[in-house]
């Protein structure tokens, strides 16, 4: 009580330094533990190289899907400093819409046609899924987030959780509780076999398309006028507004871009895993959020690499650590906690928000 403010401050710095030392020691201990476990248990299993390659490929496919969804989190966070927790549901809506579009196409026999017809039909299905996601994403922004833009930061987040549950149970009521099964057309069934490694066509397509979409997004943000406006709003909303940037329009476009990517992910995941239902966006949504935090939320390349790293860790982790694969989610979310403790700005830094801090 009687100590001077100067002393108190000194004690505070001491405490912080001690805390820093403690987290460092803890971090080192965890790293040693993981390395020890991998070398003594995981590698001792004696899996062939083809096994690790297969798992890494599984991880890259997962990572591609997470990346598309994670970009939506990161784009919105970069501009509004809020986590759009309904983003996983935006992806699910894309998957469900894609299912019905596929049914429509199949009823007309387009999926049995010559390969250019099938390719065009598949692309159309993906665009329809993306369009549905964009519609939902923009509606969410208008109804659930824009009225709360001036409210304290926690309020839109709570609104987002409400929106997430609302979307899930609306889909449950409208389309039923049973899972919908995508019927893969023959063109993309099966896969490539290289020795003991099997690459499903759908997996390869997911990886390629997600990379293309990410490049397109990067181009839009770095090279176009629209992208410049987005970066300006992310940096300082009121100054950008003074410079003649239509902030509301930029925010809407941001939601559109993020939702379109999520919709594409939803449709492609539908073709890959062949089942969608009302809650199939929830866990991928949380994983993508983890990926965004891993890469540094608000950081676009960070989200891409964070997602690929998360996918790889999830696929390889259980075998490498010699634990049952059912713990893959535990590994992913433990990673989230560890990142938040040791590097809250993510592996690649929280680029946009740092300017705010």
């Amino acid at each position, binding site marked *: 009580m009687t100590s001077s403010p100067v002393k108190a401050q000194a004690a505070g710095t001491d405490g912080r330094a001690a805390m820093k030392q403690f987290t460092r020691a803890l971090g080192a201990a965890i790293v040693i533990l993981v390395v020890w476990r991998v070398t003594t248990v995981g590698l001792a299993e004696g899996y062939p190289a083809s*096994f690790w390659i297969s798992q890494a490929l599984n991880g890259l496919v997962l990572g591609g899907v997470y990346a598309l969804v994670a970009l939506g989190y990161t784009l919105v966070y970069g501009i509004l400093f809020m986590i759009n*927790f309904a983003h996983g549901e935006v992806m699910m809506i894309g998957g469900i819409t894609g299912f019905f579009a596929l049914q429509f196409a199949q009823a007309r026999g387009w999926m049995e046609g010559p390969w250019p017809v099938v390719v065009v039909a598949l692309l159309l299905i993906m665009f329809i899924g993306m369009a549905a996601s964009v519609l939902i994403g923009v509606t969410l922004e208008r109804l659930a987030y824009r009225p709360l833009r001036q409210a304290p930061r926690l309020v839109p987040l709570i609104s987002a959780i409400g929106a997430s*549950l609302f979307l899930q149970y609306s889909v449950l009521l409208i389309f039923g*509780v049973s899972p919908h099964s995508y019927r893969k057309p023959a063109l993309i069934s099966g896969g490539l076999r290289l020795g003991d490694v099997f690459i499903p066509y759908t997996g390869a397509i997911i990886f390629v398309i997600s990379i293309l979409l990410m490049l397109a997004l990067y181009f839009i943000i770095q090279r176009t006028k629209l992208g410049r406006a987005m970066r300006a709003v992310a940096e300082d909303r009121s100054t950008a507004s003074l410079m003649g940037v239509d902030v509301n329009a930029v925010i809407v476009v941001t939601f559109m871009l993020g939702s379109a990517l999520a919709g594409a992910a939803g449709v492609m995941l539908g073709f890959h895993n062949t089942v969608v239902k009302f809650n199939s966006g929830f866990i991928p949504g949380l994983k993508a959020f983890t990926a965004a935090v891993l890469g540094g939320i608000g950081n676009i390349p960070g989200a891409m690499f964070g997602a690929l790293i998360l996918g790889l860790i999830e696929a390889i982790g259980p075998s490498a650590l010699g634990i049952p694969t059912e713990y893959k989610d535990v590994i992913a979310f433990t990673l989230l906690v560890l990142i938040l403790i040791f590097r809250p700005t993510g592996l690649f830094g929280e680029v946009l928000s740092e300017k705010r*801090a």
Partner: protein
Amino acid sequence: MPKKFTVLSLFLVAALMLAACVAAPPVAEAPAEEAPMEEASADMSGKVVIASGGMIRIGGSFALTGPIPDPGLNIRHGAELAIDDLNAMGGLEGFMFELVAEDGACDGTQGTNVGNKFAADETIVAVTGGTCSGETFGLMPILQEARIPFVSPSATNPDVTSADCDVCNRVALSDALQGATDAAFVVSDLGISSVAVVHDNSDYGKGLAEIFQNNVMEMGGEVTSFEGVQVGDTDFRAMLAKVGADGPQFIFFGGYSTEAGLIAQQMTETPGLEDTAFMSVDGAYTQQYLEAAGGAAEGTYVSFVAGADSEEMNEDFDAKYMEKYGVSPDDLGPFHSQSYDSVKLIAAAIAAVASVDDNGNLVIDREELISAIRSVDAFEGLTGTIKCDSMGECGAGGVQIYQVMDGDFSQVSGFGME
């Protein structure tokens, strides 16, 4: 700023998961602690008294949401048809039966919620359900304390009935039997020596997988791996790659339709497992399994705990089912006959103990009803002649093994084939 974000994110992830857990069951909850006590004080005599013109209310816990909504609905339909038939025959002493259907969601937590709801409602005489074993484990202790007997049409985990639980009964056969029969089929009939066992971490799936595993090992077979997945997972490639690395001849999956179908499908994409045979269990004996597996279903095996069908009664049932719901009973799920029998069995036990008092009320003593279910003997149901033993095992019939041929299940072994 970063620190704030840390705390905020952790809080949010926790809140979101909590929200998902709490919000998933869309049914109102009853307070957990108060319900049974309220019941006891309001009903000191341990009797249900139904005033003239009132209904005999039977609770039903059905898996209407969760992993197997179609079989859950199918089971509900079976129970509704039983109630219709009971009432068409004049009910009991002029009192009509009523089904109070709740969503047990194939989940222990939701089973507890449904149990509390029934326990708090002193008009509930007995319960049919739950659909899944885990859900039934949620119901069990609450109904035991509230002295409400239940008969499950489809919970097959061996621990659903036990010496400690006098209200627990079922008309389905125990997985102790299914697991042993499946193991004998795989090891002796198919001559397979190495199997991988996978389960979905549900009480039902994991329990059955363990029984199968133990039986295979007792018979001298080798279990190359024992892996778990989660109900609701859709990507099993990482798990299958790990299982495939040990090169098993056979994969056995304890769990439900969608996961079973996806595993069968993704096996064809896993090096080392392309030609490995696959078998699942009664939770996957559905159209949903065929749908989810697609072409990969062909040649896979599924076992089912079947009743001893009496042709004539079943034809009548199927016709009524078609008329009321517009689909064939087998389209949605396999346990409709058990569900019908479960309700009829409860009604028969009620008829044995109910009496009309001087004021024209129907009086049912709860303790008498509990023992009346156990003393049911030679009850003719859709699944055969039902006789309950002292543990509450009322199932008739045996285990059947099917193989998918030309997109449909055809029986290859087991009950009814000898």
